[in-house]
């Protein structure tokens, strides 16, 4: 068993262990035995385990995978260590569209929501692309533009929430990202997108490796770089947007997970992608578990916890970054 498989196995096992722990912890803590029994046979705790905690865990894993893969694709194409869907304003755009459609039109069909979010994500991406196209800012400056755009979109969300006051926890979903009140209904609109886009990003992995050698080398090795850029960025935007449509703008996962994966397994995208996906899932899942258990029965938004972790890491990246 080589090192890579070991890392893969370890993170997979960690994810399983964490899921089980997350199933058993909460306002009402349950023994592991009860948890296993209930998952398999149902019973007295059926509602808590199977209707409340299990869907949340599955959603946090899916969302973590989506955000992480999106981050890998974004960083692979833009080749900027500070790039990630949430720092580029893509999550912000998706969040704004999803949130405003929900508040203005509350009966919106849940399958439609990811589409609306994707529309928002693409609008934000297009805005960034326009700014980049006409101004050619340096990579660090581009990161700053992305952050400013996402700050603008966040204040738009803030504004809309003031116009349509909602309950505190739902407001927090859109302001910082949270898995509060998410149940099975939210899994089905999310799942098909991931089933299509995650394998597709594996298909792109090889070309991403080549494009890391520089555009000219990649072209001479048979990669259609323009097509690659469009495909990879579109899937990145779509993945981030559908995740945001479900649980709001959980920050820094799309930044952290690819970096951690690259640190663990080196620069090859085929190797990075699974590890990044698992790391992202671990991040979101542990943030959600903590958020439910720090001060029960109150709930913290998971996005607060990922920000507490992610912001220091971002500053660490700034330290190492040399391309000013």
């Amino acid at each position, binding site marked *: 068993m080589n090192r890579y498989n070991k890392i893969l196995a370890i993170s997979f096992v960690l994810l399983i262990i964490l899921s089980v722990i997350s199933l058993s912890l909460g306002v009402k803590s349950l023994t592991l035995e009860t948890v296993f029994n209930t998952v398999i046979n149902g019973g007295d705790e059926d509602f808590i385990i199977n209707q409340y905690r299990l869907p949340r865990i599955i959603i946090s894993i899916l969302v973590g995978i989506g955000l992480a893969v999106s981050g890998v694709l974004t960083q692979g194409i833009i080749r900027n260590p*500070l790039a990630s869907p949430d720092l580029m304003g893509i999550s912000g755009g998706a969040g704004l569209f999803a949130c405003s459609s929900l508040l203005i039109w509350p009966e919106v069909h849940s399958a439609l929501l990811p589409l609306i979010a994707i529309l928002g994500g693409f609008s934000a991406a297009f805005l960034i692309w326009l*700014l980049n196209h006409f*101004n050619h*800012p*340096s990579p*660090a*400056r581009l*990161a*700053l*533009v992305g*952050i*400013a*755009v996402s*700050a*603008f979109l966040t*204040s*738009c969300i*803030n*504004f809309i929430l*003031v*116009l349509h*006051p909602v309950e*505190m926890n739902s*407001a*927090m979903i859109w*302001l*910082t990202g949270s898995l509060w009140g998410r149940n099975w209904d939210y899994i089905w609109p999310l799942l098909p997108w991931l089933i299509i886009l995650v394998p597709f990003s594996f298909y792109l992995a090889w070309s991403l490796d080549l494009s890391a050698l520089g555009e000219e080398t990649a072209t001479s090795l048979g990669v259609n770089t323009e097509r690659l850029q469009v495909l990879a960025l579109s899937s990145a935007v779509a993945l981030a947007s559908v995740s945001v449509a479900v649980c709001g703008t959980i*920050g820094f996962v799309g930044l952290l997970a690819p970096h951690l994966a690259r640190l663990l397994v080196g620069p090859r995208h085929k190797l990075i992608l699974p590890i990044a996906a698992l790391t992202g899932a671990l991040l979101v899942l542990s943030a959600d578990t903590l958020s439910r258990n*720090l*001060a029960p029965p*109150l*709930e*913290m*938004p998971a*996005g*607060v916890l990922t*920000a*507490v972790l992610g*912001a*220091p890491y*971002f*500053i660490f990246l*700034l*330290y190492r*970054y040399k391309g*000013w």
Partner: protein
Amino acid sequence: MTLSFLFPPKKLMSVFILITVLLMGFVCSLYGQSEFSLRVNDVWNLFVSYDKSNINQQIILSLRLPRSLTAAVIGFNLGIAGLLMQGLTRNPLASPTLFAISSGAACLTALNSLTVASIGGLSNEAVAFVGALTGGGLVFLLGGGLSSNQNALRLILAGIAINGLLTSLTRAVLIIADDMAYSLLHWLSGSLSGIDWSSWSQLWPLSLLGLFIATSTCRGLNLNALGEQTAASLGVNVTWLRIRICLAVLILTSISVTVAGPIAFVGLIAPHLARSWCGSNHFMLLPAAGLSGAALVCWADLVSRNIIPPAETPVGIITALIGTPFFIYLILKGKR
């Protein structure tokens, strides 16, 4: 002679325009948008022939006047704080919001007021001051502001990261202390809704102190614009100058945050407006930046009350909606 040097006619004009804009915003926010039908006349009469039994005048005197005054002074404070920071760091993007000074003050104030971690029985102002110091200090330390090859962009990016971190922490604190959360959530994005005369009396003494310190740094800032070494060789005690500037910025920002929460981006926009009108002499820039900030907050407050009439939008959201596009513009422009 000196006076004509300080106030050339063109600049005098721009200051005049600024004051007019400010006054218009001020007066409009005194009578505009109310459940009662207030009119300009009521404002006029309040000052000319004060009638104790007139309900409209009473409303203006007890609700609107403190609010508008507070809005103006907070804008003034933030504008000056931004100007001082931009002068000190020679970084056009420096401002209390982006260097996490506001959010540091807000974070500690929230902690303190919810008594999650009561800090030694200090007053709100002192707590906000410590918070502002912590936020700004962190940004400078972590963003490499002390090293010799400091980089403007790195400093800003570090500031934004710490700003995000502190805002998240504040939100977490708010949620744990659930019962007071919603009003604090409003305060957290900068709101002038609960202002009365007591906030005004809390605000003005420290603002005056801050303004006094800020004025004393003008000459130093003018010379500092030529470069630190030049300034030192021209007899400026650079360390002492820095200390005074930091003190002024911290006082001005923290008192504003204590009263109205972190009103975003005023400290970024106001100095740029002032610079485009008044050149680069800090003796002129200081009042101009202050007045622009005051006008900005007054107008933003007026807008915030007009959007959904009976309810109020936090004024910080309005300034953020104006400020972030301006911020993007500055980033893109700064390349050249």
